[in-house]
């Protein structure tokens, strides 16, 4: 089995607004014997600043990679955006010797050097590649039979596929497979692999509302009891903004959106309280009732 120690990269959105993701991820990781070591001194992954200054954003990403290298660990991120950006930076620096030289000249100002000795993974990649489905199955103590789940994968965990190395970049099965392990029923729905629009919110908040509404409506129409996400920003758009979507369009969805780690935790026999499911904006009590019967 692969080395099961990881440098945990939290990013910004999770400590800012998505504490329930961090709580459930840590609980699940502990139960799976994954050792998560907090990254001292980490900074923002760089992605949010990329539109303004690619140079600075890349330097910020590389600084994080250097911290993980110093720890001698692989990076495990919980956020799609962080994973995608760090992995892209890592790949570019590994492939392009000139760029690496240029970057190291800049990093000399803060006394660090990028050596290309680490690797970046999303927790979903860790679960599928390092833990593996076979082992994951043995941890499922209470299969979520009767629960219908609409998985929402997000973008940066699989696109651009050239960097992320995903076999089906237009319909990656990673989250669908991970949901299936829990014993829940997976439903497919229109636009499930499309953008949540969250990054639009930085310019105006109108477009994300339209995009979130599409996903909620399609998932609901497909018969989902709950949606499941892998990314705190997607979660914010679908769960945090759901009341806004409902207000804007005078519609009712009431569709709880769980972090995947919460769903897995439930299947592993943890209680909703332990997994901070009560912290979701759209309450999941009613939707999860099917599990008690």
């Amino acid at each position: 089995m692969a080395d099961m120690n990881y440098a945990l990269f939290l990013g910004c959105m999770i400590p800012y607004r998505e504490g329930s993701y961090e709580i459930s991820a840590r609980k699940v990781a502990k139960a799976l014997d994954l050792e998560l070591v907090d990254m001292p001194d980490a900074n923002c992954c760089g992605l949010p600043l990329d539109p303004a200054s690619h140079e600075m954003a890349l330097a910020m990403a590389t600084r994080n990679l250097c911290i993980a290298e110093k720890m001698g660990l692989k990076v495990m991120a919980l956020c799609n955006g962080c994973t995608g950006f760090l992995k892209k930076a890592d790949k570019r620096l590994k492939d392009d010797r000139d760029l690496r030289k240029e970057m190291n000249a800049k990093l000399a100002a803060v006394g660090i050097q990028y050596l290309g000795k680490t690797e970046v993974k999303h927790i979903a990649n860790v679960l599928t590649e390092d833990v593996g489905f076979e082992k994951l199955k043995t941890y499922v103590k209470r299969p979520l039979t009767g629960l219908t789940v609409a998985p929402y994968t997000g973008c940066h965990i699989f696109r651009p596929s050239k960097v992320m190395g995903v076999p089906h970049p237009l319909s990656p099965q990673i989250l669908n497979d991970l949901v299936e392990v829990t014993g829940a029923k997976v439903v497919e729905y229109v636009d499930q692999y499309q953008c949540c629009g969250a990054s639009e919110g930085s310019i105006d908040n109108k477009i994300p509302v339209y995009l979130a509404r599409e996903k909620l409506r399609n998932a609901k129409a497909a018969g989902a009891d709950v949606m499941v996400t892998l990314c705190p920003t997607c979660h914010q758009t679908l769960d945090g903004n759901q009341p806004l979507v409902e207000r804007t369009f005078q519609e009712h969805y009431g569709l709880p959106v769980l972090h995947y780690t919460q769903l897995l935790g439930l299947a592993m026999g943890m209680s909703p309280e332990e997994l901070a499911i009560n912290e979701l904006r759209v309450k999941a009590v009613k939707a999860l009732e099917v599990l008690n019967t």
Partner: protein
Amino acid sequence: MNPWEGVVEAEKGEDMMAEAPTRVQERIYRIDPDFMHELLKMPGGDSFKLCYQCGTCTATCPISRFTEVFRPNKIMHMAKLGIRDVVKEDTIWLCSVCYNCVEKCPQGVEITDVIRALKNKAALEGHVPAYFRELAATVLKTGVAYTIPGSRLAARETRGLPPLPKTNLDDLKKLAEVTHLEKSLGKA
């Protein structure tokens, strides 16, 4: 220019025709051959030259569904023609960086990266939304993209979470200097 001019409410059906969205204003642009070469030198900004205007990017773009003003193929075309004013268009900031178009482009144009290069160029020339200046200030002040309230940081302990790692802000400041962040944001 208001980027929301022409945002379409897809659900209104027949009403949509009655309230036809305002068309993007026709304008006369100046062509500057140097612009294309400047863009080619930006990191990731070179692949637009392969674009043959099939429009697949726009067809696949989730943002283009909801606003008439965002058309990635048009942005590629403007770059190719050498229309320097493309960096003054608010529309370039509407790209949500979902990479859908990049997956489907038959010519292998890294559309997302080209638009990123255009955004960087726009910022350099001072056409950057205020949001990004504030964001840069927050990153340099806190190490992350948000100012996390002290109460939330304190609550981590009661919720059984370890304290949040603190960033060495001097390091970030030095990185901002060597990467000329101020200049990239059109200041100094």
